[in-house]
């Protein structure tokens, strides 16, 4: 069972519909107990970094999510969910994230339109195996749907699975062991997104 964490941020149903279409059982959860019981977690998210962190803390979920992830439970962060995995975000201030991954969340420069909105190409990291893992079957011809103004600057670039390019190269998908992140919305990225969600689902169930 994959649990989608509901903390009041964003469109959970689309993620669940996509998982159902792919044949994965999923549940929308908002309690510690359910998070602890589940086989894998998805942390979705739209909106502001600070609000999301505050909401996770006020629902007393932040520590549980962190502990579960640190103890090896697979977790996928989508969009803001990915950003929350990092140590610090500079979105309208300086905010502390979950600290599961090392690095910072920074804003796109003003030489490009912000938000970065639309379909952009996915560029597999040089040493990523295209035949297995999260990026299985993904090539540079594939597009995913992005909507965001901030992006991750990871300390360790080897954690990047897929890059994308918007004025500069930024991580589109990351992985460190059991911790997965996608900056785009796989649930809105048509066949390519479904392929990536399927890869995640198969890796964790």
């Amino acid at each position, binding site marked *: 069972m994959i649990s989608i964490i509901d903390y009041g941020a964003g469109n959970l149903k689309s993620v669940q519909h996509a998982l159902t279409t792919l044949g994965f059982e999923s549940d929308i959860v908002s309690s510690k107990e359910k998070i602890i019981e589940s086989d894998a977690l998805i942390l979705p998210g*739209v909106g502001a970094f600070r609000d999301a962190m505050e909401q996770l803390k006020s629902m007393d979920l932040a520590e549980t999510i962190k502990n579960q992830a640190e103890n090896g439970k697979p977790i996928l962060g989508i969009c803001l969910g990915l950003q929350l995995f990092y140590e610090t975000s500079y979105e309208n201030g300086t905010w502390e994230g979950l600290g599961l991954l090392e690095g910072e969340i920074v804003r796109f420069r003003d030489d490009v339109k*912000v938000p970065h909105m639309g379909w952009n190409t996915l560029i597999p990291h040089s040493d990523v195996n295209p035949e297995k893992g999260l990026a299985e079957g993904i090539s540079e011809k594939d597009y995913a749907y992005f909507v965001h103004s901030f992006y991750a600057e990871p300390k360790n670039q080897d954690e990047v699975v897929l890059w994308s390019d918007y004025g500069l190269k930024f991580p589109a998908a990351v992985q460190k062991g059991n911790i997965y992140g996608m900056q785009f919305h796989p649930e*809105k990225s048509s066949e390519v997104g479904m392929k990536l969600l399927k890869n995640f689902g198969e890796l964790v169930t």
Partner: protein
Amino acid sequence: MLAKRIIPCLDVRNGRVVKGQKFQNIKDVDDPVRLAKTYSELGADELVFYDITASNEERDIFIDVVEQTAEQVHIPFTVGGGIRSVEDFRKVLKAGADKVSVNSAAVKNPQIIQEAAEKFGSQCVVLSIDAKQNEEGRWSVYLNGGRVNTEKDALEWAKEGERLGAGEIVLNAMDTDGIKTGFSLDITKAISEQVNIPVVASGGAGTQKHFLEVLTEGKADAALAASVFHFEEIEIKALKNYLAENDVEVRQIP
């Protein structure tokens, strides 16, 4: 590279997709969910649903269409029409819409843009502007399907919308809407150059070349059309091939 987007627009009334000209002569076209699915399969990058109903009863049918689309179609879609409050935003987002476009309500109360952006994030707040050129060549913002001139300058309104927190602008040029003589390039270009958020051009698509023009000369980030797609005068896949041949970055599906 970020691709230019092609967006079919579905006007929905009483659970059916309809199409009119210059907001008149309404014709029934198709089932919205079926059509949304077809467009997604053909390579549409996004969809827009406009609720052109009046009664509350029909509004419920519309919400049902939004829910079914969210379940069956895995590309982003915007919902517009009849959005008057932050609560309306919440309702359609909850039903599964990714973005919400607001038009008249924002003209009457610009704060709605700010409130919605603070609550749900700028990424889902779309400012839709109906503009028409006046005799001096300036573009004014219109309401109620072009019947009411607000005397507001379209370019200034777009900039204000960005400042208030809109994440995208849909510019509907009313002179060309439904008459297929091409998008309005000048105003699209002017707005696109002066705001730092994506601009979607709408109104006037008749040929593939019109799309090419607005996405290059007009500097639009996306182009929206209805009847040319509904009546199969332009096929999305062929349009994207044509744009790619003319060096426009588009998402092509195999």
